């Protein structure tokens, strides 16, 4: 194994090792925490070395692979091009920083073994996901992140009321609107797994068409399988099903609900999984596959125009879904009362931006520019949103409440936190010259160039909404008038800056946002052109420059500053506060507020439809089940399709499993098994003897041990 390959494997394997170590060394307490976090640090260093190799040396590509189940063409391998190298770099460092934060944040939690196990397990799975060279390994990482997310959302599964999300007692359309952690975990799993069914289906279709799981090979034969599907009119359904997993993971409408209630997890987890990394898995999926789909479109352009149109329709759909999600979630962030919920809504909204950019990419003249817009927004958002969440965690820790109503006036008490959150919130708002400004500008420009007018309009409006809620967030937390709660804490001198171990990560991230933003016109093009220099299926090396379109600036900047201005007016001036009171008292306006606060009643509708649907199903389902499923499916469809599936498997069997699994790995275990097997002599007397000898040994062991 060469050095570059080693760094790639070490980068994802180390966190897994850390997860096992945190089980094995659980007795060590704090030391175990540091060991678990330091494996993340080593993994980050390894990812850095890997990125250096990818960006300088090896022609922008590092691959490594070892057979796993050769009979089915499954291998365990990494494929690191400039895109996944950059992703891995950002993810690994964010994970490490948040790991450092967790050292202090979770220091007194009784379930730390579980926490660190899943934290490290998550990081390993996430890195495996972005570096996987085949779909099956990618899916493994994909499910791994989902499992870890489920466990960490439900980390406080004893469900004390303080851990809930939502207002206890509040109902919308008769459906409860509060969610204890264990329930939230369940929701996250159910919502994302609905999407995974589509993803798995897509993988199965690709495998049966190409006979391989390897992503590069699928990319190279994209014309062939796309043509096969397009000829049968299945291309668009396939693309939508295949992307379903990405939409669910990245909380796009209509799968967005899980991300909101995922905020029952520890804040460090929200920062890591539900803002910076895992929810970006869907974005990564599009970054990875949009060029491949585009490649297919190019090849179908002349031979099968209908196929090219299907891909065009697919990209339009993604653009619109992204734009709608961005707008839709931003409206809900306007009225949220929980600090973490504001950030959660905002995260989903920003993910919508990324989807919009990547959908637009497929509709633009130059695909690469759209991809880079999506990537740069991914990068800037990962950095500033992680910082915002970590800061929010520190604030919630300090004021012992998650509601913004219990905050206010903290600017003087938590100066560094204030500075960090101000910079990152302004970046979120899109204020020049911060990083968020540049990336959002490129996203809006992509939407503009895509020609989907509605998406562009929603994108611009959302920019204004974002500016407003970011302002509200900062003002309600740090200025406004101090609440009862804050005054009480002030009086007892219990308000103080966060622990340095917690402060350092988000302060560093805020500094990164500021520096990147200030230098972006100079370094931006270089970074982006490196990232785009060797991406799978992205043939054109783009010409990257940072330029500002005066028309777009003329539309969006006034909205941004308008949003900030309105926010300032509403929360910092006395007439603005009178206005807020007036809104609360006016019936139609407060109805709108309730509508937004109850998340457009989407959650209630889901519950109503699902619960009502189940009742209906149980009434009518049995009849249908009998005639349709038993007769149609079992007697006709299943025998035929299983026959075909087994025939496909047959073709790829080379009888190599013997060498792979059974000779190398297991030979040692087999020896032990053969020895143990001899104890099964067939004689009842021996069996009885074993029984009583075991009983005697157990009794004596515990007698000696207790006495």
């Amino acid at each position: 194994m060469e050095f570059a390959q080693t760094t790639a494997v070490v980068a994802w394997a180390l966190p897994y090792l850390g997860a096992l170590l945190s089980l094995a060394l659980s007795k060590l307490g704090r030391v175990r925490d540091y060991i678990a976090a330091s494996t993340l640090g080593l993994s980050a260093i390894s990812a850095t070395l890997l990125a250096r190799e990818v960006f300088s040396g090896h022609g922008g590509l590092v691959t490594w692979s070892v057979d796993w189940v050769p009979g089915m063409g499954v291998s365990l391998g990494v494929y690191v091009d400039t895109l996944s190298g950059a992703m891995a770099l950002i993810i690994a460092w964010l994970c490490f920083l948040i790991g450092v934060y967790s050292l202090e944040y979770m220091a007194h939690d009784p379930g730390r073994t579980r926490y660190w196990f899943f934290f490290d397990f998550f990081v390993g799975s996430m890195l495996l996901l972005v570096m996987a060279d085949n779909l099956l390994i990618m899916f493994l990482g994909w499910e791994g992140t989902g499992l870890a997310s489920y466990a960490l959302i439900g980390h406080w599964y004893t469900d004390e009321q303080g851990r809930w999300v939502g207002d206890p007692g509040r109902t919308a359309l008769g459906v409860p609107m509060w969610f204890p952690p264990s329930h939230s975990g369940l929701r996250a799993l159910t919502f994302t797994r609905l999407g995974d069914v589509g993803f798995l289906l897509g993988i199965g279709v690709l495998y049966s068409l190409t006979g391989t799981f390897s992503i590069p090979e699928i990319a190279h034969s994209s014309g062939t399988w796309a043509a096969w599907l397009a000829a049968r009119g299945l291309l668009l359904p396939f693309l939508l099903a295949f992307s379903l997993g990405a939409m669910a993971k990245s909380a796009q409408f209509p799968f967005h609900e899980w991300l909101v209630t995922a905020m029952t997890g520890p804040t460090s987890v929200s920062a890591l999984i539900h803002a910076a990394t895992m929810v970006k898995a869907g974005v990564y999926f599009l970054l990875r596959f949009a060029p491949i789909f585009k490649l297919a479109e190019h090849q179908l352009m002349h031979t099968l125009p209908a196929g090219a149109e299907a891909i065009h329709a697919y990209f339009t759909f993604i653009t619109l879904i992204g734009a709608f999600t961005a707008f839709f979630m931003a409206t809900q962030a306007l009225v949220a009362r929980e600090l973490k919920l504001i950030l959660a809504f905002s995260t989903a909204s920003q993910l919508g931006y990324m989807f919009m950019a990547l959908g637009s990419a497929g509709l633009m003249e130059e695909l690469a520019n759209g991809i880079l817009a999506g990537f740069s927004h991914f990068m800037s958002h990962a950095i500033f949103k992680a910082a915002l969440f970590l800061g929010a965690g520190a604030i919630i820790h300090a004021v012992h409440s998650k509601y913004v109503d219990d905050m206010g006036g903290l600017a003087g008490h938590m100066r560094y936190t204030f500075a960090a959150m101000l910079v990152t919130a302004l970046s979120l708002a899109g204020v020049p010259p911060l990083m968020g400004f540049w990336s959002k500008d490129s996203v809006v420009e992509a939407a503009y160039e895509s020609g989907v007018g509605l998406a562009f309009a929603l994108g611009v409006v959302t920019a204004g909404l974002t500016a407003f809620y970011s302002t509200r967030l900062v003002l309600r937390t740090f200025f406004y008038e101090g609440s009862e709660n804050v005054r009480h804490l002030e009086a007892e001198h219990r308000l103080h800056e966060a622990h340095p171990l917690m402060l350092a990560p988000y302060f560093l991230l805020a500094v990164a946002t500021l520096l990147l933003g200030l230098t972006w016109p100079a370094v931006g093009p270089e970074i982006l052109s490196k990232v785009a220099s060797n991406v799978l299926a992205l043939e054109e090396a783009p010409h990257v420059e940072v330029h500002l379109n005066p028309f777009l600036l003329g539309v969006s900047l006034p909205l941004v500053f308008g949003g900030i201005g309105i926010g300032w007016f509403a929360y910092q001036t006395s007439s603005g506060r009178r206005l807020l009171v007036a809104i609360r008292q006016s019936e139609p306006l407060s109805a709108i507020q309730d509508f937004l606060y109850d998340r457009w009643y989407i959650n209630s509708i889901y519950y109503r439809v699902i619960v009502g649907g189940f009742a209906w199903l149980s009434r009518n389902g049995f009849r249908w089940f009998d005639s349709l499923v038993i007769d149609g499916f079992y007697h006709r469809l299943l025998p035929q399709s299983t026959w075909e599936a087994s025939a496909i498997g047959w073709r790829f069997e080379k009888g190599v499993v013997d060498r792979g699994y059974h000779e190398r790995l297991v030979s040692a275990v087999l020896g032990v098994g053969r020895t143990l097997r001899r104890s099964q002599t067939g004689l009842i007397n021996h069996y009885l003897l074993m029984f009583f000898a075991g009983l005697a040994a157990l009794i004596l062991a515990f007698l000696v041990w207790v006495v």
Partner: protein
Amino acid sequence: MSLPIDLTSLVFFATSALAVASAILVVSHRSLVYAAFFLDVLGTANAVFFALLGYPLVAVFQLTVYVGSAVTFILFSVVMFKDVPEPPVPLKEFAAVTIALIAAALLVTFHSFSGIFPQTQAVEMEELTRLVVDKYWFALLLSILSMATTLIEAITLARREV
């Protein structure tokens, strides 16, 4: 049973000696028929213990059901088979040590009962009837059911096929 103290002890030790001796013979006697016979003796000795402990009813039940029926059942099946020599089983010394260890461990563990004397007054018949009929009727039903099952299945298994 209200025997004088010495007499109780005397009966206890005599019965113990009988029980242990017949137990050893059950396991070690060359002939199966004798083994079954000594099991009968052991069952009777056990009934004496029960009576000493203040369970005359169980003692009678033991004698009728157990000694009377179960052991007869065994005797009946024993005479169906020829006595054959039993070659020794390997590892039997190891078995002896193991089982001695278990017995020793149990004796040590339950040593705390050495200061407790048994409550020897017999259980009121009336109370017992009430308990069985009112409270444990379902258990009794299940028990009868399992006896019936045994009977049916024993016939099934042992029946000669055509």
